[in-house]
């Protein structure tokens, strides 16, 4: 698991999570300076986020009947965007509450970076037991760069 901490001025909070179909969080990239005084530690948070997302996804499925219904939720302080691949990988990004849907961006992370740098990497494990995570330099750097290039990053 990677917890990256890069200082930048006035960033919208953005953390991206990547989850496999098990309840392990494969990768947590933290691209803001907000992480050090969180209410819960990052391991604990990952579990909570997984629980929330899992419940909401089932909640939406139950109500709407569609498989891929859950898009995002927001509170007074943040917004959580959600994208799930057909294979059951879940991509999550947190932003400030006013950001438009980042689902396309999450999809891009999956298609352009996860598939490219993780799936196509012969050394990368298929499953990630024990929360080892996607310990992959290229992937991390690419995601980091990509998120910082988003128009919403320092708006």
């Amino acid at each position, binding site marked *: 698991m990677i917890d990256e901490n890069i200082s930048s001025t006035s960033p919208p909070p953005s953390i991206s999570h990547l989850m496999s179909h098990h309840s392990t969080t494969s990768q947590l990239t933290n691209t803001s300076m907000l992480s050090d005084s969180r209410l819960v530690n990052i391991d604990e948070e990952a579990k909570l986020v997984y629980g929330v997302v899992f419940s909401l996804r089932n*909640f939406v499925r139950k109500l709407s009947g569609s498989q891929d219904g859950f898009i995002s939720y927001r509170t007074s302080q943040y917004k959580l965007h959600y994208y799930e691949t057909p294979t059951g990988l879940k991509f999550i990004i947190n932003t400030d509450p006013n950001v438009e849907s980042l689902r396309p961006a999450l999809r891009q992370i999956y298609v352009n970076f996860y598939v490219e740098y993780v799936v196509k990497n012969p050394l990368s494990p298929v499953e990630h037991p024990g929360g080892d995570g996607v310990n992959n330099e290229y992937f991390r750097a690419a995601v980091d760069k990509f998120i910082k290039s988003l128009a919403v990053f320092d708006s």
Partner: protein
Amino acid sequence: MIFSVYIINKAGGLIYQKDFNEGLAKLTSNEYLVLAGTFHSVHAITSKISPVRNVTSTGLEVLEADTFKLCCYQTLTGTKFLIIADPNHPNIDNVLHRAYDIYSDYVMKNPFYAPEMPIRSELFDLNLAKLIKSVGG
């Protein structure tokens, strides 16, 4: 279009559920109870996992899905009002506040209502239906 209205008491129990328009799956009353319970716990956790420092976040306020959006208003006393509407319905917050108004009038002032218990009140049904109709169903 507004699909349904839920009221969840402070312990997470569903005390009111009414569909106003077709569009969502029909569930059994037991399933609705489970959904309400799930929502209640998720709501609590969402405020805990806020990434913003030094500011307490509310719980989940708006949930977006492809066929609907769900808006939640939690009163200071812990009761939650939920409205499920189609994704483009404007100004749900206002409807939620007015539903709370109607609740405080026709539920809390009704001598036959036991607090935290399921709501069975003719006048509440009547006035809520009127409100939902006035904002375009």
